[in-house]
């Protein structure tokens, strides 16, 4: 909330660059792709539900990748699924962000050794912005991951590529 912080905290005139405004808009309205993979998806749903309420941060699930800004890889990615996830990622319009939720998506999790059909980390297929550890991560952890992503967006610049 860079813009509004400045506006309300020290009572100055808003001397924010247009970039700050753009970044503020992007980080305040991260729409996630409504897409669950495994156990973490249930925690992701719980995060959207009443108790934790993703909507407070402006996150709402959109079911089609065309209208989504972020994809939360919530669970084990199998080899069969990985190609589909890549496809979904490619269908999303830029700027797009990825949160890798849970150990399985980060690195294969408990399936790292004998999982003959498990992709050991979604970052082998698509670039990840934020990793959220845990098996499954608590909703608070996912919220923390979201805040980290917002932090990242806040410091983005349109002039240079960050991804």
């Amino acid at each position: 909330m860079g813009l509004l912080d400045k506006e309300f905290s020290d009572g100055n005139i808003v001397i924010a660059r247009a970039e700050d405004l753009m970044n503020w808009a992007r980080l305040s309205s991260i729409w996630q792709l409504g897409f669950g993979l495994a156990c973490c998806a249930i925690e992701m749903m719980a995060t959207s539900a009443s108790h934790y309420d993703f909507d407070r941060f402006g996150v709402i699930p959109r079911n089609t990748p065309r209208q989504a800004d972020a994809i939360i890889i919530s669970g084990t990615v199998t080899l069969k699924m990985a190609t589909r996830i890549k496809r979904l990622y490619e269908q999303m319009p830029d700027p797009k962000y990825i949160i890798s939720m849970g150990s399985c998506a980060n690195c294969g999790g408990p399936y790292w050794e004998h999982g003959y059909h498990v992709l050991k980390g979604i970052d082998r297929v698509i670039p990840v912005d934020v990793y959220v550890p845990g098996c499954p991560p608590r909703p608070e952890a996912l919220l923390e991951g979201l805040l980290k992503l917002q932090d990242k967006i806040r410091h983005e610049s349109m002039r240079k590529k960050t991804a």
Partner: protein
Amino acid sequence: MYQFLYNLIGNEIIAGLLVAVVPLTIILVFALFGIWLERKVSAHMQDRLGPMRTGWHGWLQTVADLMKMLQKEDIIAHDADKSLYNIAPVLVFTGSFAAFAVIPFSSKLLGSEVEVGIFYLLAISSMVVAGILMAGWSSNNKYSLLGAMRAAAQIVSYEIPTALVVLSMIMFTGTLSLDKMSQMQTSSFWNWNIFGGAVFGLSKFLLIPFMFVGATIMFISTLAEVNRVPFDIPEAESELVAGYFTEYCGMKWGMFMLSEYGNMFAVSAVISILFLGGYQSPIGYLGNTIGASWLVPFEQGFWFIAKGLTLVFVQMWLRWTLPRLRVDQLMTVCWKYLIPYAFLNLIIIGIISIL
């Protein structure tokens, strides 16, 4: 309004453009507010808070959403029919925007004082169907196509009960002008059409139940025309992903969204004009009491917006309470129940009016 500006400036085109700015502002502001309201209403109904981080209780949330959408990449799928794909959102938006031209927000704020206001409204709102069909077809996506087919069937069907109820109101009031209809229901809520109109007599009391039936049919069928739950099958999230706008991204999708909320307000406005006195105050005007007659149009504007928003709130309330119907059940509701009842209502209101 147009006449006033025309006298002031003396140029038809500039006056026309200036007049058009007013409904555009209203529809945009309402859509921004409506989307925020929808999220807050749903959140509070679901024991949540809704957007909280963008300004006071997230009131800037929709602004952020729109600014984000403007920044998004504009993807047009390779196999999409590009020209149709690009025209469709514009057409849909135009349809719902043009409807605001004839809606009297108060006795002074009225885009165009055409005599055939309600007729124009019914005609122009059908343009939305064409836009939706184009969107569904040109996306070259099966979900979009199914959604568009559903939407077309639904909107065209539900135009009929709407038109029948409107017809009965035209018969009752004897005018096609929305402004005149509003003027007829002046001075107190007792004179609203839903309470049988301003003429006191036996027929007024006889009409009251049938007016209620008419208003209910009108509300249900307009609910379906703007694709709200329980009639939101064209974009049924759990079946068709996002219906006819599955392939749209960024601001093109934003235009669908804006027009949806614009439509919500437009149909609420029509219901309040036909049945709930339009911009007339239910309890009399403060401006008249204290002798400041310039205050009256502003009060009228307030009452009009208040009535419209109340109906919009009811639409949202229903959305977050009810499940959705299936496509064949939707058609059953329309053809087997609403149309016969609306027709019967039309005849009865006609007979009572003659009495």
